[in-house]
């Protein structure tokens, strides 16, 4: 079979990243500054490839890549359809933004560990890309372990209490991975295949089989831990708050989302809609997600530490995504049916939370400010950073025309269509709770005066502006701007055809067989 260049990209995305990770290790011995350059360049190249992949998938069709030329189900197959391509672009975009941001912030926070940081970071990206592109379930497990291990190490990199957080994550993450592996084992014992597509062909007659059903339970539980679905989120707050900020942003914006992607992939590519409709599992997930939304928000209100607060907010936001996933089988609209709201919110959450965590990092970078109560007068001192925070926070609350608003509307429409009015109320309540905890921060930043800062009667005596360096500011502002711009773009329905293709793949939304 003759491959076009773009069809080589799925594997190149991973190989280039892997090679670069080890190149950084060597280059770091020669010159520490080169680490960032290499990492940045690699991720940029990867992103370009991802965009090409997305374009190819949309125009030509799904890419099947047989590693080593071995045909599936014997060889490992990389399959990139609309879903992966979309997720891949998100992953790499945020990775690029975070790596840009990390240049100064890591030099400031972890000057001793620059080399290992970038090596691990690149491995993390490798793992995330791997999970995204692979079409082989065991290969997926391997990549999940790769990114998890890098994440453990990255979280621990700040030492001290971060070690404990990392350890908790390590234990729980490993349990999650074990569940996932057990699920794979169960399926393999029944079908003798590890290729997702192959499995989806073999499985249907076996849906009544208890082992197959148990395997699904294992997958769901394992991935629920990985994606911090309430009540299995207990590792998340510590891990998010003690990791370096760009890693927090990646954790919250990408890593848990990629785990969600894995769940979606397993649910709809390995198993099918027919199987899911057999059991009330998705209804159950909806309820769990609804509780997660409320309780995550309530716990976020309780926090004084900004990063912890954002972490709990992530728990709540994962609830949004899972609620949308849970509703996906019962909605049939062309617009908000199927996975559209879930996938939409994956991108939106990445933008919003990425921005918020990077801003939190900026406060720490500038003045070691961790607690919300210390933010007095920051609005004047760091106007751009605070403006970015404000935009992202407004998105989280769901003020139009931000991304959060669009997600909210789509999810509410999905709730309405599936007749679950109670979740509409949950969504509205949660946006109010979001308001409570985000507005507290905004109020402190803008409306409360810092110590010794006199009420300046004229504009001339406004206190000095003390902004973060440009290489950190640009990522923050980019994300904040995207929070609004993407909101409008979503509303114009430009990117929706991609999501529509996903629904077509899985037979969801308007492609569902009634």
């Amino acid at each position, binding site marked *: 079979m003759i491959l076009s260049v773009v069809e080589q990209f799925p594997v190149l995305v991973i190989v280039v990243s892997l090679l670069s990770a080890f190149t950084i290790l060597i280059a770091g011995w020669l010159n520490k500054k080169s680490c960032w350059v290499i990492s940045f360049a690699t991720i940029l190249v990867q992103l370009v490839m991802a965009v090409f992949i997305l374009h190819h998938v949309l125009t030509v069709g799904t890419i099947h890549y047989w590693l080593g030329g071995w045909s599936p189900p014997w060889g490992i197959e990389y399959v990139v359809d609309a879903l992966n391509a979309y997720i891949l672009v998100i992953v790499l975009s945020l990775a690029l933004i975070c790596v840009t941001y990390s240049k100064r912030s890591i030099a400031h926070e972890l000057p001793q560990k620059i080399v290992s940081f970038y090596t691990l970071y690149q491995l993390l990206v490798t793992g995330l890309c791997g999970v995204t592109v692979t079409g082989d379930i065991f290969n997926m497990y391997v990549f999940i372990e790769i990114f998890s291990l890098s994440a453990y190490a990255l979280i621990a990199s700040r030492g001290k209490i971060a070690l404990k957080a990392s350890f908790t994550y390590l234990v729980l993450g490993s349990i999650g991975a074990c569940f996932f592996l057990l699920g794979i084992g169960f399926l393999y014992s029944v079908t003798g295949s590890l290729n997702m597509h192959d499995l989806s062909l073999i499985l249907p007659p076996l849906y009544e089989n208890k082992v197959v059903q148990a395997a699904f339970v294992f997958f769901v539980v394992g991935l629920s831990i990985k994606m911090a679905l309430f009540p299995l989120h207990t590792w998340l707050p510590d891990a998010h708050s003690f990791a370096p900020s760009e890693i927090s942003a990646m954790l919250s914006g990408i890593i848990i989302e990629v785990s969600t992607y894995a769940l979606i992939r397993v649910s709809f590519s390995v198993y099918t809609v027919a199987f899911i409709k057999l059991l009330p599992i998705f209804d159950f997930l909806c309820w769990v997600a609804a509780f997660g939304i409320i309780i995550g928000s309530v716990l976020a209100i309780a926090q004084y530490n900004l990063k912890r607060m954002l972490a709990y907010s992530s728990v709540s936001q994962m609830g949004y995504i899972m609620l949308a996933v849970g509703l996906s089988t019962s909605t049939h609209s062309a617009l908000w049916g199927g996975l559209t709201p879930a996938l939409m919110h994956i991108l939106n959450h990445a933008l919003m939370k990425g921005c918020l965590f990077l801003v939190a990092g900026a406060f720490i970078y500038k003045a070691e400010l961790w607690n919300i109560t210390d933010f007095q007068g920051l609005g004047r001192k760091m106007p751009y950073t605070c403006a970015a925070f404000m935009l992202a926070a407004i998105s989280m609350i769901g*003020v139009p025309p931000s991304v959060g*608003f669009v997600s909210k509307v789509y999810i*509410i429409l999905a709730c309405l269509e599936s007749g679950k009015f109670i979740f509409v109320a949950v969504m509205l309540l949660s946006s109010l709770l979001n308001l409570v905890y985000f507005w507290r921060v905004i*109020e402190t930043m803008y409306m409360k005066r810092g110590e010794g800062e006199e*009420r300046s*009667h004229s*504009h001339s005596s406004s206190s000095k502006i003390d902004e973060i360096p440009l290489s950190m500011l640009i990522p923050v502002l980019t994300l904040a701007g995207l929070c609004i711009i993407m909101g409008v773009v979503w509303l114009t329905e430009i990117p929706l055809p991609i999501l529509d293709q996903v629904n077509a793949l899985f037979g969801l939304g308007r492609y569902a067989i009634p």
Partner: protein
Amino acid sequence: MEQLIPIPYRPLLAILCPAIGSIFIVLFGKRPNIRESWTMLASIAQFLIVFSMVPIVIGGNGEPIKYTLFTAFPSVDFGFSVDAFGLIFAITSSFLWILVSSYSIGYMRSLHEHAQTRYYFCFCWAIFGAVGVALSGNLFTMFVFYEILTVSTYPLVAHDQTPEALFAGRKYLAYLLTAGGFFLAAVVITYYFTGTTDFVTGGIPNLASEASRTALMALFALFLLGFMKAAWMPFHSWLPTAMVAPTPVSALLHAVAVVKAGVFGIVRVVCYIYGVDLMHGLGLGLVLACLATFTIIVANLFALAQDNLKRRLAYSTINQLSLIIFGVALLSPEGIEGAMMHIPFHGFMKITLFMCAGAIIVVSGKKNISEMAGIGKEMPVTMIAFTIGALGMCALPPTAGYITHHFFVHGCEEAGGTMSFFPYVLLIAAILDVMYFFPIIYTAFFAKSEGSSGSKINEAPLFMLVPIAITATVSIIFFFYPDLFHISELVETAVSSLGGVHP
């Protein structure tokens, strides 16, 4: 003008004026004169553009000017549709913005307020939201602007940054964003039922057939909750609390832009989503009228008890807003006409009152009515303007308030049935109005001040005085010539197509 800007782009441009203005305001934040001239420029430009649409809409026989930016959901556009009713609100807010801009310059400089750039910036966005609400062509677009309006006014309410102001800001947001949640739910449910959220003259046709009676009732309740900006009781308490804001903010936002956006929304829903006939069929008119009546009476009673002038005006605002709701609730052409007309009329009169209150604060620092003995001799122009506004509130000639009161009474008569009992409510309301406005005038002009501060004339700066004089004059002109700014023509155009007299 015709050649300058193609007609369909005018709504967009009108909206963009304050947005662009806000950017320049920030850019010139360090140079007050240039910054403030941008505010003036933007406001004048916006008014001119809005006003230029009037002849087109009147000439077009109720045909709205449509401009669609993009389609958000099937048959839900993000776009504008300028009809006569929307124009009334747009004209009111954009014209008053010019005056309040000038007034703000005087007020903020006299009091040496801090963070003036933020103030002007947020003001622009508030107007952006308000005019957006006025010109939006469907519920969805309206919601977007409605929320922008809420958020952008928060910094204005909490401007003082004192604990009290912060509390007020929090309360403001808590009420209005909660309301936003309800509004969103209502919009989505409407869309779910009918597949559209466009404002249709006479109501969305398939709304009645798609939803059950109970569902329609519940939906209307959601809408009402969503329009908490109209400050109907018992969800009014954010408005008096928000009076800690600087007076120009209270004046424009809490007499015109924000609260009127709420009332405007209710009128829109009643006339253009439900439609008069459906409202009548569901018996919602009476419910709404009772709610409004309750608010009118109780707000007046509360107003009687206030000593702080701005708070008293705030309760008076609550009362007058419900008067507008009441007018719509009558579901008769004259009632609706009165309601629509009362939006600009009340705007002009109430803004006069607020601006006078602000002028008193600037000159003498007095906030309470009991301290104002003899102030009429010190500030004759201000207090005469205040008297005109107060007369308007009491619906006495020769002010604009008389005209609308007339309409409301006629509306009641026209509606007939139970409604014919309601003029007595209006009477009681007017009497109560007299009871709390006349003492102020009496104290100001006739009571003797304790300290013999003399009767030296000590007026506010011209920047403030001129707008006060203009609004007071306009309030009187409306009495003799209601067609100023083509208001009555627009109202007639709007009402003529609504139809529906229900004896």
